[in-house]
């Protein structure tokens, strides 16, 4: 999910920064003192989760957890994910500074989607928390893959080819992210359910 430097055209890079700036702006307006510590913790969790490599067959993947971040952070997910991505780019050269806006948008928009769609389900509990968590984690990575495919299509890659490759290789990650999100939400629901309400 970290697009490298030099892959995307300038128009996509600028659009990514502009779209992410809107998300950051709204996030800052909604960042109350009560949410500040939670957002900082989620930013830290996202930063660290990317270093947890899970071996799958001969290769490995890293957790994204944008569905989890979105459910708990709400609109401030752009801030949490943006700061973590910036540090990953600066300290570890994951992604890059020019692609930061696009990378942020690709990961944070599905997180926001997760918040808008699945958070009401947590409040009213029409679905089991575990199922809500799984759908949130799965769909967030799925949407990120779609946005990644669109971004690469702007660089001249054939959308169908790029998306087929990305989806085929990310299906295990969608399932694992869904399961980890589900387990984490189930745990929070058992021990501190008030964290799940915005």
């Amino acid at each position, binding site marked *: 999910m*970290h697009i490298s430097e030099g*892959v995307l055209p300038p128009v996509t890079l600028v659009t990514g920064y502009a779209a992410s700036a809107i998300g950051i702006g709204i996030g800052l307006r909604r960042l109350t003192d009560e949410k500040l510590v939670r*957002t900082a913790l989620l930013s830290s969790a996202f930063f660290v989760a990317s270093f947890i490599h899970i071996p*799958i067959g001969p290769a490995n*993947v890293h957790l994204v957890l944008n569905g989890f971040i979105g459910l708990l952070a709400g609109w401030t997910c752009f801030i949490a994910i943006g700061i973590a991505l910036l540090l990953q780019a600066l*300290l570890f050269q994951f992604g890059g500074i020019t692609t930061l806006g696009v990378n942020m948008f690709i990961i944070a928009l599905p997180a926001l989607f997760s918040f808008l769609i699945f958070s009401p389900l947590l409040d009213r509990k029409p679905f089991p928390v575990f199922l809500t968590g799984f759908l949130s984690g799965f769909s967030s990575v799925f949407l990120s893959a779609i946005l990644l495919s669109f971004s690469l299509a702007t660089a001249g890659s054939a959308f169908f080819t790029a998306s087929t490759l990305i989806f085929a290789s990310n299906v295990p*990650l969608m399932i*694992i992210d869904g*399961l980890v999100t589900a387990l984490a939400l189930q745990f929070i629901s058992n021990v501190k359910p008030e964290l799940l309400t915005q």
Partner: protein
Amino acid sequence: MNKKTYQTNRLLLYPLLQVITLSGIIFLMLLTPTDVHAHKMTLDCRFEGSHLHGEVFYSHNNPARHCSVKCYSLNSNALLASGTTSDEGTFSLQLEHKVPLKVIADDGQGHRASWIWNGNDDANDRTENPKSNVSMEKIPAGLAVIIFSFGIIRFIRKHYHES
């Protein structure tokens, strides 16, 4: 079913559900082959006669399979040779002339790495993304900066509201 039995069953159900889920995750990890790799792509090349041999890999030295590799002249930007990486992430390109060049590897999923050779055999070859694993010492530093950043946001917000 009385209330106590129901609560006991619920208490037993959650750990059972979690054990089943964790088993599922482990099963997926062990059995599912995939080409997903994380983060940074690295390219390393060397000359052997008229052949340019190279290796493309991701973090933790996982080979980058079936990546597109293109070799351009550094002066004219003309395409000199192209190919794809093997299952081991290696490639070999035959070059007609040994001129200053730039090699770009792209996996089609947003990861790209490049290698530049300026024509000097001694010191001018350069891997733009040098081979390295994640430096674990930087992770606590990153976490500290995140906490510091939110402290700054808190400070600015408080200052803004007071003024």
